[in-house]
């Protein structure tokens, strides 16, 4: 059967897509943790990272590059993506959420503010950078579809290796920050119990800002990877954002490991299920959301989600 023969290829594809979902999903889940708010403008933070890294990579790429040079360009792309998105996310929090928080606005106001910022950013990037968005990322320096590994008929291309490795390293770094630094400890404390965290000497506002910075940086890394692999444009965020949000919910919103797992799972399901002979790839999105709904029916809090309630 064709499907079975191709399964390893589908898995690699799924892992590639899934790692990008996971990076973006982490941003939703981090912010949800500290604010109990879905930052619907996060998809645009991701988009901004692709634009930011394009501007740098397209400057650096022309000419001949060896392996080291090309790696440096990739690194530069990842870093600019992370920095641009982190700054956008930080600004977003400062102008769209913090004022509402200080006035004690209801949750619905945050939601409207988030949607408004999302539209604003899509339009802004369209106006400012539309002349680029038809362009592809430079590819010559990378030769992105060159095979790196060929194992029993599975071909893993360069760009796939870059995506998986970069995502993995970024997530390891995040784990180190969250579990091994005071900043991480303060984020966890605010997520668990903000008023008590303040009693320990944690500045809640500052912790929230920094959470947006971190979540933004993760989305920016994904923005560069996605842009380099599939292209970019000012409306690229919506589709990825909805999927990544779904992944975060699937894993259990607020739970970091859950977001990683949810992202990978969603990517793999999307890659392996639709090519089945009786389904068809035009059903990809339907399959993804059927799986999401099915899991939530049985585990309403997501895979790793737990009932958030204080033990007495």
């Amino acid at each position, binding site marked *: 059967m064709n499907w079975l023969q191709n399964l390893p290829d589908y898995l690699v594809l799924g892992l590639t897509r899934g790692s990008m979902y996971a990076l973006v999903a982490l941003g939703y889940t981090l912010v949800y943790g500290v604010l109990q708010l879905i930052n619907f403008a996060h998809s645009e933070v991701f988009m901004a990272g692709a634009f930011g890294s394009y501007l740098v990579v397209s400057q650096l790429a022309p000419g001949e590059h060896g392996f080291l040079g090309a790696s440096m360009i990739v690194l530069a792309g990842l870093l600019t993506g992370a920095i641009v998105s982190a700054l956008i996310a930080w600004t977003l929090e400062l102008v769209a959420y913090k004022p509402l928080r200080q006035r004690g606005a209801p949750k619905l106001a945050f939601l409207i503010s988030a949607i408004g910022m999302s539209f604003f950013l899509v339009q802004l990037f369209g106006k400012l950078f539309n002349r680029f968005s038809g362009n592809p990322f430079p590819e010559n320096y990378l030769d992105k579809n060159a095979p790196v590994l060929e194992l029993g008929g599975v071909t893993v291309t360069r760009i796939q290796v870059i995506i998986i490795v970069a995502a993995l390293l970024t997530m390891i770094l995040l784990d180190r920050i969250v579990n091994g630094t*005071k900043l991480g*400890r*303060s984020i*966890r*404390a605010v997520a*668990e*119990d903000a*008023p*008590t*965290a*303040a*009693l*320990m*000497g*944690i*500045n*809640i506002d500052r912790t929230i800002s920094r959470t947006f910075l971190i979540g933004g940086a993760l989305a920016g890394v994904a923005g560069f990877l996605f842009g380099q692999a599939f292209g970019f444009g000012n409306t690229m965020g919506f589709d990825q954002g909805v999927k990544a949000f779904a992944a975060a919910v699937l894993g259990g919103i607020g739970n970091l490991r859950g977001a990683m797992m949810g992202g990978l799972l969603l990517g793999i399901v999307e890659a392996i299920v639709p090519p089945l002979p009786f389904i068809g790839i035009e059903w990809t999105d339907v399959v993804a959301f059927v799986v999401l709904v099915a899991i939530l029916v049985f585990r309403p809090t997501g895979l790793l989600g737990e009932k958030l309630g*204080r*033990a*007495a």
Partner: protein
Amino acid sequence: MSLLEVDDIEVRYGAIRALKGVSFHVEEGEVVALLGANGAGKTTTQKTVSGMMRPSLGEIRFDGERIDGVPAHTLIHKGICHVPEGRRVFPRMSVLENLEMGAFRFKTHDEAVLDRVFELFPRLKERVKQLGGTLSGGEQQMLAIGRALMGKPRLLLLDEPSMGLAPLVVQQIFEIIREINDDGVTVLVVEQNATQALGLADRGYVLETGEVVLSGTGAELLADDRIRAAYLGEEIAH
């Protein structure tokens, strides 16, 4: 000069005045109890001292310095550590992580203080790796007090340490509060359990609907007919 001076503070929740001009003082080294029924304003008073709430009128001075309106995360640096109502341990952090959170204001926690906490609460040492949310009520109370001690308090605020605990555990907790006070920590304790609190306290204040209606030494208040009728009588009836 008193360590803590609360001078005619008024605190509002919207249109409701929860505190209507409360004044009291706590001297260095004392244990002072705030007594009163539910809704009398004890917790609000403590929250205002620790910076969780802002008074609309009045002044609070700590060590002679104005602290009313200073946010909680800054106040802890002056050595005011608050064990809030309901203990509020971090449920998904281990016992050790919870204790380390208490020392968040320092670069690293002080091993000597940690040893002292384990000496006061050997139970916590047995359970260092257990998650806060899985502890029993009494253990959570111990953890919450231990966590506050990690911040090296000059003034320790305790909000209903006896709440929901078995009498034997309550006794144990109050003995430990005595030891903490002997270590030189000034204590302001909010309690509904008047007998226990007054047995421990040097002085006490009785709050009723947001006002101080009675004050005196622990012994005086224990002997006061009004206290006996209002609080101790209630307890005997249980």
